[in-house]
């Protein structure tokens, strides 16, 4: 062994995440915003706090709620650890979503990176799944009814809906079986899958030659220590400090113990699912729970594989026109979705006007067309007037879908009060 003594094998192992030298442009903070790294850090924080919480949590209907109260009152720093876990979980959903936006809009998902996009989407799904399974564990009114509402949405999927919902709940309604299922998934299966997928994800990033950068004649290579590692440590410190500070003052919510005989008014899904719940208020379940989610899922999985005209890997929004289109279409989709929901809420009552028609048409197809036709005309306008190519049009589609979802989520979160009616 001829290695110098200053580098221990642990250090060398950690350095496998990075090469010794990288392009200086890759060390710029605004190339990645450190989002992927923050996700990995949050995973570690969640694992540690989660392991600590496991020592006091009891996954049964009788004791779950009391064990949370016990954690709060009898464990040193119990409430703090729970707050930290809660906040990190919330932040993980936000940060992994932003990471998804970053890699997509900086055009880093094509060719050899396409496989990693699929792994990334799988992990995005796992983030949502772990957040959702963790949601039930406190067994309070918030948890119970949010999970009831979401598993009931699964029931709308034709043919397999009921057996899928039954498999998730382990029962006809949300009860002790559901709690046990969710506990096992949340503290065992999902974290294990995460580790496997994370290893693949990191390895594929290395294999693709690090993060995606625009092509350039002259490359300037720098050492990662200290150029990159110091920045990573700084971001990690800021995130940890922010989380600790917030967890000290902000308590994770805990309502009354779950009561299956009393629905709170309103009963809302977990916040990241509120867009889906909003969709279901306006659209027939066949569209709201089947056609749109599946079409969107396939659209996202296929993103790296469509036939594109011109891909500029590593260039934000592909081109100046792409940038203009992304910003404009996001804003317009947001405003348009908002106006459309307002109109459906107060003025357009197709379910009453066309009561004799099948509800799939009156509350499904018609509202769906109200959304899809203007969007198609808008995209056509870009194509004809500004000669937008396929790459830019597909990017605009992605922006429209994401922006509309965020709009629905915010409406449902902020503007819906009693009876899920709009507050204005």
């Amino acid at each position, binding site marked *: 062994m001829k290695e110098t003594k200053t580098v221990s094998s642990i250090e060398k192992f950690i350095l496998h995440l990075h090469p010794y030298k990288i392009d200086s442009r890759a060390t710029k903070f605004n190339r990645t915003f450190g989002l992927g790294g923050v996700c990995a850090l949050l995973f570690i924080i969640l694992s540690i706090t989660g392991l600590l919480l496991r020592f006091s949590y009891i996954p049964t209907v009788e004791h779950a709620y009391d064990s949370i109260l016990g954690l709060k009152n009898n464990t040193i720093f119990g409430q703090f650890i729970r707050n930290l876990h809660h906040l990190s979980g919330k932040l993980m959903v936000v940060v992994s979503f932003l990471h998804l936006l970053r890699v997509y809009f900086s055009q880093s998902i094509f060719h050899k990176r396409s496989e990693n996009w699929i792994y990334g989407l799988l992990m995005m799904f796992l983030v949502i799944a772990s957040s959702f399974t963790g949601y039930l564990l406190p067994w309070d009114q918030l948890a119970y009814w949010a999970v009831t*509402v979401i598993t009931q949405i699964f029931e709308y999927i034709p043919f397999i809906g009921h057996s899928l919902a039954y498999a998730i709940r*382990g029962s006809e309604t949300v009860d002790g079986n559901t709690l046990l299922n969710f506990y096992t998934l949340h503290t065992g299966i999902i974290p294990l899958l995460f580790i496997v997928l994370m290893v693949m994800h990191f390895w594929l990033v290395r294999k693709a030659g690090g993060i995606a950068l625009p092509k350039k004649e002259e490359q300037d290579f720098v050492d990662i220590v200290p150029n990159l590692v110091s920045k990573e440590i700084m971001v990690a410190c800021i995130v940890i400090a922010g989380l600790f500070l917030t967890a000290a003052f902000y308590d994770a919510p805990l309502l009354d113990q779950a009561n299956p005989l009393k629905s709170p*008014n309103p009963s809302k899904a977990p916040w990241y699912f509120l867009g889906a719940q909003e969709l279901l208020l306006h659209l027939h379940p066949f569209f709201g729970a089947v056609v749109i989610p599946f079409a969107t899922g396939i659209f996202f999985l296929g993103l790296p594989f469509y036939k594109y005209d011109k891909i500029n890997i590593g260039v934000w929004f592909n081109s100046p026109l792409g940038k203009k289109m992304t910003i404009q279409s996001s804003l317009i989709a947001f405003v348009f979705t908002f106006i459309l929901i307002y109109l459906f809420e107060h003025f357009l009552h197709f379910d009453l006007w066309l009561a004799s028609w099948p*509800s799939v048409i009156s509350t499904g197809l018609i509202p769906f067309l109200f959304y899809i036709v203007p969007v198609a005309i808008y995209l056509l306008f870009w194509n004809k007037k500004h000669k937008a190519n396929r790459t830019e049009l597909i990017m605009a589609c992605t922006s429209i879908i994401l922006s509309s979802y965020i709009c629905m989520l915010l409406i449902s979160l902020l503007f819906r009060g009693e009876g*899920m009616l709009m507050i204005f």
Partner: protein
Amino acid sequence: MKLNRRKFIKRALITVASVEAFFLLKGSVNKINTSSGTAELFNAGKATAFENNKLYPFLTGQFFLKRFEDGGFLAMSIKCTHLGCIVNTNSKTGGFNCPCHASQFDKYGEVVSAPATRPLDYFPITIEKGELLIDTKKPIKRSSFDKSQLTYA
């Protein structure tokens, strides 16, 4: 893509093994279904104790027992068919309102106002020795109300 015999056999084996693994896993995580077998029926008491045209909530059994003008009984689930919230009685209309997403049902459990798309589920009622027995483990889905859903004493 060329598919030769070797590839075909390999893929066929993988498919069969995956299907088998799926059913094995599904079977091993399934819990014993407590609702099957000899389910206990909910005893609501003497049929004669209920007045015509009145609604009796049984929260422990999770149903509303309605006796209509002609003496027919209907046991409707308290769960909204939209997303599973517990509906409240509406004393003005004699129907039911869902607090979660504002679905409304009439006294037969039929939808008056969306987003719910089908009427409230109902439970089968049998009458033995003048007592009403309700099978609360077996909700029946329906697309509209008709007389055959009523039980007469």
